[in-house]
C-alpha cells in the first residue's frame, strides 16, 4: 500500500510502522480524500496540534491507521494562527469520529472547522478568554487573578533549608557517638 502511495507523494519513513507526508493547506482535502478512499488507511485515530508561536503557525498532524492496525500514516500541514486563512474544512463526511477531535481542537486552540456544527462548549464551560492551550495564554497569571490561595502556616519553613539543617544535625550526632566509642 505504501508503495502505491509513494508514486503520488513524498513519503518520509519515520520507522518500520510510522510514515509521514508533508502537504500544503491547499492540497488538504484532495490528499485526504485520495488516501481515505483509495488506500488501506481507513481509520482516523488522532488529530494533534502544535503551536509554533515564533513562526506564527499551527502544525496539525492527521494520524491515519490501517485496518490491521499495523501501520500509521501522519499527514502534516501548517496553517496560520490567525486570520481568514486559518480556517480548515471539516473531515466529518470521511471520518465521523473527527467530530469530537475537531471540537476539542476548536476549544483548546480556537481553530475553526468549516462545516462542523458542534463547535460549542466541550470540556470547558462558559470559557470567555483566550483558548487555554494557545501559547499566548498565561496560565499562571490567569490562576493568580482567578483564585485565592490558602496561606501557609505561620511557622512553616523552607523545605530545602530545613532538610539541610536536619542532615547536618544528624551528622553531628553521629560524629559525637563515634568519638564516645
Amino acid at each position, binding site marked *: 500500500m505504501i508503495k502505491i502511495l509513494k508514486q503520488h507523494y513524498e513519503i518520509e519513513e519515520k520507522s518500520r510502522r510510522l510514515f509521514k507526508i508533508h502537504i500544503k493547506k491547499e492540497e488538504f482535502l484532495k490528499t485526504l480524500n485520495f488516501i481515505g478512499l483509495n488506500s488501506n488507511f481507513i481509520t482516523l485515530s488522532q488529530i494533534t496540534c502544535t503551536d509554533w508561536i515564533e513562526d506564527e503557525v499551527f502544525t496539525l498532524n492527521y494520524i491515519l491507521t490501517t485496518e490491521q492496525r499495523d501501520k500509521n500514516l501522519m499527514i502534516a500541514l501548517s496553517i496560520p494562527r490567525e486570520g481568514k486563512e486559518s480556517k480548515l474544512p471539516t473531515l466529518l463526511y470521511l471520518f465521523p469520529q473527527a467530530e469530537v477531535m475537531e471540537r476539542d481542537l476548536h476549544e483548546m486552540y480556537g481553530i475553526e472547522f468549516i462545516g462542523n456544527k458542534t463547535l460549542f462548549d466541550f*470540556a*470547558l*464551560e*462558559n*470559557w*470567555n478568554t483566550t483558548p*487555554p492551550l494557545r501559547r499566548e*495564554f498565561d*496560565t*499562571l497569571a*490567569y*490562576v493568580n487573578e*482567578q*483564585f*485565592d*490561595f*490558602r496561606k501557609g502556616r505561620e511557622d512553616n519553613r523552607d523545605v530545602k533549608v530545613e532538610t539541610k539543617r536536619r542532615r547536618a544535625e544528624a551528622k553531628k550526632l553521629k560524629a559525637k557517638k563515634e568519638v564516645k566509642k
Partner: protein
Amino acid sequence: MQEEGFIDYQKVLNNEEHAIKGTQSAIQKAVDWFRSKSMFVLAYGTGCGAIEMPPTFTSRYDIERIGVVGVATPRQADILIVSGYCSYKTLKRVIRSYEQMNEPKYIIALGSCTINGGMYWDSYNTIKRLEDYLPVDIYVNGCMPRPEALIEGFVKLQKNIREASKEAGYIKYRENNKFYKENQKKIFGENIEPSYEADFNGMG
C-alpha cells in the same frame, strides 16, 4: 466506666440539670446520637479519590459496620464526599447535588486538591479551595488518602455531630448563602443555575 456510644440517654433526659450544661437540649442530644449512627453517603465521585471509595464500602474495610451506607440519589443522602479535584464543570454538578440534598447534610472533602489545589495548583480550570464554594465539614488530607484515613474522617464527623462541637456546614451555607453564591458567580458568570432554597424553610 461506660464505653463510648453506650451512654444511657434516658438518664440524661430525666436529669434536666445535666442536659442544660451543654449547648444541646436533652432531646436534641438523643437525636444527634441517632443521627451520627446512620450516615447515608451519596454515590458520587469526582477525581481520583473515587478509586479509594469502593474498598472503603466493600468487604475489605466494610464501613457499614459504623453505620455508613451508600445511596443512589441526593434526595436520600446525608453526606457528600468530594473525592479529589473539582473542575468548573464538575463543581457545577456538585453544587446542584448538594443543594438537592435534604438537611441535615455534611460534606467530606477528600484529598489535597480540595484543600489548596494540590498538584493542580496552577491549572486553569480547577478550583483551589473548595470551602470558598461549599461549606466543608471534614477535610481528609493526602494524595490519595487511604481508606483508613477516610474512615477516620467519618469517625471524627460522627463525633462532631454527636457533640455538636462544631457548627454544621449546612447551617453555614444557609446563613452565609450570599458569600457562597458570590464566589460561585465569580467562576460561572451569569450562566449559574438558579439556587435551590426550598430546603431552607423546612419545605424540602
